[in-house]
């Protein structure tokens, strides 16, 4: 592919062309959704720094990358992906360049859950899929959601029946193996009333190549459902990662999110949580750990629609080199959402003089009987703390790493899967190795 694209409309035209070139897939029931998404793409443009939601994040480099949709060609063996697999996690769906790989996947217990590729479950669960897919992540105001929906193909599907508790975490492993392709991973989680599930959404790459990942995840919690959602983005440092996640909570449901962003040259994660049922609550912990020339932008929106809901959020950024982290945390409390209890904290650690962070709490409160707290800090490692550790024999690098780890620890410690927690601990402990 050598098409030279100079502006965003050409870029979109190019993508539209590659869409129409695709044969009408077997997902007959979803063709309508894909067709309306592609229509929507035609009416939108790529955002730029003049758009308020994108003022800190310049994605213009993306428009120069005319990467075609990934084709199925990978012949990965289990030995290639072994290092990404998590101990004690037998439920695993593997997508290579967004093509479902049944050979690498493993479903421990198909009796109590519906788990697999959307493609193969479409015929048996059409009504559930059609009543949820595309209902939470709307594409009419987001070009990337529109593109993801337009290129919808293989997708992770998890349906947890009512009163079902899935004790083992479900690992959704999205592996990038080809360079200079675009892939459009998609996940849908529908958790029934009184159900419980833990899911790990994990983006990894086999090599350090350049590619584009544009993901959409939708999670619906029925009344009294509990979902733990761990998201780890460890894409190639040359990759571009664009992600949207939309979560909808019914009465008395609980959503816990832990999002760790490590990879990609440029990444953007939009998390939209709607508390649409009374007494629902969400806990959102985020950690961004970047260096070099990385740019990582996390935009969250917590929408209190109904009364008596709680939300707690903390986001931490650790930024080294000339990297740039962005956090924008919107909390919206609608007029009828009385007795809302909400807190937000944004804490940021700059490890070099050239690292940069933009943090922006954004509270929109339209109810009068609510409790909303927020705070933001930006700091560096404390020289007295470093000296204390050095005086115990630790080298400066070890001291800095330990303090950096300590800063990240209260996010990492929330991860309920020990093997994943240990992997991330090691990554953080080695973060400033180069100094």
């Amino acid at each position, binding site marked *: 592919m050598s098409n030279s694209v100079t502006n965003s409309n050409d870029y979109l035209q190019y993508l539209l062309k590659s869409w129409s070139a695709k044969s009408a897939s077997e997902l007959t029931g979803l063709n309508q959704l894909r067709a309306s998404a592609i229509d929507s793409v035609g009416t939108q443009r790529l955002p730029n720094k003049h758009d308020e939601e994108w003022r800190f994040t310049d994605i213009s480099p993306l428009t120069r990358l005319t990467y075609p949709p990934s084709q199925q060609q990978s012949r990965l063996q289990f030995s290639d992906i072994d290092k990404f697999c998590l101990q004690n996690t037998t439920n695993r769906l593997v997508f290579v360049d967004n093509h479902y790989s049944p050979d690498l996947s493993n479903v421990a217990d198909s009796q109590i859950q519906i788990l697999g590729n959307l493609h193969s479950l479409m015929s048996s669960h059409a009504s559930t899929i059609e009543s949820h897919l595309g209902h939470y992540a709307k594409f009419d105001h987001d070009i990337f959601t529109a593109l993801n929906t337009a290129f919808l193909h293989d997708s992770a599907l998890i349906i947890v029946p009512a009163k079902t508790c899935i004790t083992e975490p479900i690992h959704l492993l999205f592996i990038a193996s080809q360079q200079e392709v675009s892939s459009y991973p998609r996940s849908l989680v529908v958790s029934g009333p009184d159900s419980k599930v833990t899911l790990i959404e994990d983006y990894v790459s086999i090599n350090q190549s350049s590619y584009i990942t544009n993901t959409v995840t939708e999670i619906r919690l029925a009344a009294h459902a509990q979902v733990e959602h761990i998201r780890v983005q460890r894409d190639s440092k040359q990759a571009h990662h664009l992600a949207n996640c939309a979560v909808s909570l019914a009465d008395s449901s609980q959503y816990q999110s832990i999002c760790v962003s490590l990879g990609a040259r440029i990444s953007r994660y939009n998390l939209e949580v709607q508390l649409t049922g009374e007494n629902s609550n969400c806990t959102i912990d985020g950690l961004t750990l970047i260096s070099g020339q990385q740019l990582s932008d996390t935009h969250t929106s917590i929408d209190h629609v109904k009364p008596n809901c709680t939300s707690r959020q903390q986001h931490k950024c650790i930024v080294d080199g000339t990297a740039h982290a962005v956090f924008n945390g919107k909390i919206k409390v609608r007029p009828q959402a009385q007795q809302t209890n909400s807190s937000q904290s944004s804490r940021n650690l700059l490890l070099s003089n050239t690292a940069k962070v933009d943090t922006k709490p954004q509270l929109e409160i339209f109810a009068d009987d609510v409790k909303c707290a927020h705070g933001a800090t930006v700091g560096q490692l404390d020289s007295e703390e470093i*000296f204390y550790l050095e*005086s*115990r*024999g*630790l080298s*400066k690098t070890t*001291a800095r790493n330990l303090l950096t780890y300590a*800063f990240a*620890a209260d996010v990492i410690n929330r991860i309920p899967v020990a093997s994943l927690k240990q992997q991330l601990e090691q990554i953080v402990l080695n973060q400033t190795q180069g100094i």
Partner: protein
Amino acid sequence: MIDKNSTTLLSIKNLHASINTTEILNGINLTVKSGEIHAIMGLNGSGKSTLAKVLAGHSAYEVTAGTIEFEGKDLLALPPEERARAGLFLGFQYPIEIPGVANTQFLRLAYNTIQAQRGKDELDPLEFDDFVREKMKLLDMKPDFLDRSVNEGFSGGEKKRNEILQMALLEPKLSILDETDSGLDIDALKIVANGVNQIAHKDNAIILVTHYQRLLDHIVPDFVHVMQAGRIVMTGDKKLAMELETRGYDWINADQRLATGVNA
């Protein structure tokens, strides 16, 4: 204990040090031999804590003149971590809190770093757990100290005990305990002093930096030095500390003036 045949650990000659161009140490001379316990006393601002930090290698202080030799080697040429590995220990007046790092993790990291330097075996978490629990008995510490974050939410006494625990683990040749008695009630003071006394032996040495004589009731010094304006102005034995306790620091000024004939 004073033994004329013991080796010299620390030799400070004409030490001058400043912070942000303000001179704090103004010609310190001090020799410490193994087996000895020294107390450095003085009012706030006399330079006691600065001396402790300069010895440990704090980068905020600039040594402008003089020498420090530790076992015959130039201490000033070493960064802080190498001083620690060479056998120097500073017990902090205000130990740093590190939320997110378990005490046991920190203690084991420090212990293994020093052990590796000495060419000795490092301990895995299980071995270390047994080892540290034994040492904790010296200081009457509860096992939950290990699981808590380093110094986070510790009381003043707990923090100081944690410092002495580190001293017990790292087995330094020379320990400088900066105001270890401050913030301790009498029970905690006795526990800490008892721990220090058990660690002290003929091959190591201790410098106690303190305002008050009360610590010296429990850890008996061989030498007492009085600091003023960045210098050691008087040296004696434990009786000097008692005299300071009853007469205060003013009489030294008067005494000094008398002795040197200088008008203040």
